[in-house]
């Protein structure tokens, strides 16, 4: 095979490999149950997977070009998080955020964020992963409510016992006083009898 033939063969193999990689990436992105997107250094969404679209309500074509911070209630928090210095030295960061879906529903999410760098180590943006923690937050709030109620009940019981304790303590003291008085009176009576 001459040089031209070899080059054409290599090109054909490279194109086939590229097709395979593209199919793999698309299948993987579709399968991934975690909502993931990439943003550039300005915080603008470059792409997103199906799980991200399902979670946020934004189709990929709607999400691309949007500022990621606009998807959150606490926008300023997000802006601080994506500053390069925030993540310096860390492979990733996780924070609780409030997502605003396309339908304007507020959803508590756990957001993981990591820096992207090119082969020359230049900062080129971030990977972001979101998970819906609504169920976890509901459970936490429920538990907190139950703990509060239980604490209130226990406090009421303690107060009752304290009241009873004070009552019984008072009665006991009174009984001791009465016994003392009876004793004195008895002694008095004995003395009176003795004189007669």
């Amino acid at each position, binding site marked *: 095979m001459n040089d031209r033939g070899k080059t054409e063969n290599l090109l054909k193999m490279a*194109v086939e490999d590229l097709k395979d990689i593209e199919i793999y990436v698309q299948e993987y992105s579709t399968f991934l149950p975690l909502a993931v997107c990439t943003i550039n*250094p300005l915080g603008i969404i470059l792409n997103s997977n199906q799980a991200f679209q399902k979670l946020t309500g934004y189709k990929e074509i709607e999400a691309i*070009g949007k500022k990621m911070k606009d998807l959150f209630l606490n926008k300023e928090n997000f802006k601080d998080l994506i500053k390069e210095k925030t993540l310096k030295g860390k492979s990733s960061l996780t924070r609780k955020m409030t997502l605003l879906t396309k339908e304007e529903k507020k959803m508590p999410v756990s957001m993981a964020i990591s820096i*992207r760098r*090119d082969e020359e180590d230049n900062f080129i*943006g971030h990977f972001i992963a979101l998970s819906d923690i609504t169920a976890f937050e509901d459970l936490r709030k429920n538990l907190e409510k139950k703990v509060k109620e239980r604490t209130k009940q226990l406090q009421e019981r303690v107060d009752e016992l304290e009241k009873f304790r004070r009552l019984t303590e008072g009665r006991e003291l009174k009984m001791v006083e009465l016994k003392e008085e009876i004793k004195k009176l008895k002694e008095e009576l004995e003395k009176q009898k003795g004189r007669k």
Partner: protein
Amino acid sequence: MLMVSKQDIEKTKRMEGEIIGSSLKADREFIIEKKGREGLRKVEKEMEKLGYALKYEEIDKYKWYPVQQDFLSLLLAQKIFNWSDETIREWGRWGAKTNFIIKLMARLVSKKTIASFASKSWRKYYTRGTMEYKLDDEKRVGTAIIKDFTIYPVHLHYLEGYFYQILSLVEPSPNLKVKGVETKDSNVHRFEVTW
């Protein structure tokens, strides 16, 4: 009856160069999104009448196709669906958003990188023509110039949308504008960018 005049058909046939399949595929997906498969079939039927038959399902993303496939699909879709210039710009923005090549261009982190990337990126789409992009950050203006390439008005509006979308990734200013400007030379096309 053909939807394109004989004169335009002759001009089209003389266009030189090829376009990458992935771009053709993405552009036809816009037609599907807007008008469904039936709408795309209408465009494909008209293209077949003009001698440029190509079904969407048969497009290979990594193959090169005659550039007429690009131009005619834009022109015919505009005529068949009576699309405004703004819809064509929307089409251009769609093309930039959905293209796999753009998604991989993580290096587009600033207007300067776009300027240096411009000429290489043209080659990823077309085998003919050149593009250069100059910007003046102080005056907040830029100029993209495409040479040695035939562009008709419908394609001009498409590119306005396309360039706008790429630039909006690095310049999210609400004042960003991209406008195609006519030049005396039919083979030279200028786009003025302001932000």
